[in-house]
């Protein structure tokens, strides 16, 4: 699995892992993010069970196992957290931060040792000692209990499935031509995102944040002016098209 440091400062750095060449063909490609401080590491949306071995090997390049202290699941999907049962056996002391709404569901992935730290509907923060990450609510985008992670110091918003794109092959890390990128993300947002009301509410909230990188769980990362371009584009997009699609013409 490929990994590299995205941004760093004195207290911590962000690492992206993904574009795994060993990934089985029919599985959707995912980005996993890790935030490493001097003594701890959190894995954001650690991914599916099929990816676990590669992901573990990747994480150990940055921290020994006992310093991986926290996991975050933006929502309950299998590509987000179906590896939980194995992390549960791997981590000597771990905490999973995930929406309160999904606790009873997520536990189906297997959880005996890790502590479930429920995230309230209005978000909160994850304290990693020297670093504090903000939890930004993003309900119904696409999951009914869903959050993003914002790092005010490095100005990264880990946006989960928002901003996701599906491209064949191994696309580069960053969006280079916004207009050319639209076809890779349009259907994903129209079909997987259910609510225009929720979408506009999220855009309003996120516009108040100072964002340098908008980092989704699938596909390329938006940086600089492309973050604003994405928010403007998303605002204009009608989502929830599955309702019309459920009628046969």
């Amino acid at each position: 699995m490929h990994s590299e440091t995205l941004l760093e400062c004195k207290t911590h750095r962000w690492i992206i892992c993904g574009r795994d060449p060993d990934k089985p063909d029919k599985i959707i490609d995912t980005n996993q993010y890790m935030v490493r401080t001097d003594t701890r590491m959190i894995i954001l949306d650690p991914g599916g069970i099929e990816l676990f071995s590669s992901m573990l090997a990747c994480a150990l390049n940055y921290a020994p196992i006992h310093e991986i202290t926290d996991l975050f699941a933006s929502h309950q999907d299998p590509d987000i957290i179906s590896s939980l049962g194995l992390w549960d056996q791997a981590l000597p002391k771990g905490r999973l931060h995930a929406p309160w709404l999904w606790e009873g569901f997520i536990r189906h992935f297997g959880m005996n040792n890790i502590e479930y730290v429920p995230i309230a509907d209005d978000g909160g923060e994850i304290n990693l000692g020297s670093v504090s990450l903000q939890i930004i609510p993003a309900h119904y985008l696409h999951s009914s209990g869903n959050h993003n992670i914002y790092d005010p110091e490095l100005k990264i918003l880990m946006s989960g499935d928002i901003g996701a794109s599906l491209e064949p092959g191994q696309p580069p890390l960053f969006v280079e031509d916004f207009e050319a990128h639209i076809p890779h993300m349009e259907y994903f947002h129209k079909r997987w995102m259910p609510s225009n009301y929720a979408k506009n509410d999220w855009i309003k909230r996120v516009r108040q944040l100072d964002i340098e990188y908008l980092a989704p769980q699938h596909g390329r990362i938006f940086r600089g002016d492309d973050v604003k371009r994405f928010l403007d584009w998303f605002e204009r997009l009608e989502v929830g098209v599955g309702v019309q699609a459920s009628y046969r013409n």
Partner: protein
Amino acid sequence: MLTLEDIDALHRAYEGHPVPRFVVSATLATELKSTISIARRISISSKNAQAITARAGTWGQGFSGITQFIDEFSRNTIDCANRISETSRQLSQASVTLIARRTMADRLGRVMAHHAKVEALSQLYDKYAASAEKLEEENERNFHQLRKLIEEIRDCTRALNSIVATCRIEASRAGPFQQALFVIAADIEEAAWEIGEQIKVGKKILDMLGRS
């Protein structure tokens, strides 16, 4: 790179529970990856030495004879480190699969204990149990292989250390080329020491594997 103290801290974090085998083997694979780049440094030093001795003519004859051995040991070390990395990666993956098979077999076993004998269930149980057993045997083989490979690298670094002593003697006879060859001997010595330290860590990780 982890230190011996880090390994102790890792072990302590599990509070007396065995460290899962897939964690130990993935840690070993990660730790010994850098051995490859250190061994490559030795190989480069040896090539530099060859270039110097070629220019040095008769001054470099003594040193020149040794470079071939240095090259051979660095190649062996790279080869062993590559095999360790691959074997421990396999061991880690197979141990993850083993957990899944064992969990399925255990759960089926529990269901079967409470129900009348169901042929389909017991067939499935046998399948998972047999697959778990096979994986266990394979893991055991890989574990022994890792032990052997670690020993092999250790022998290589020991041999390199004794070669370094000869390098110094030959360098001192190289007249105007003496200084350049001393530097190379020191580089090789440092790299061999680094590999030696990594092997100590690797051995300690492997001891954990024996207990998991």
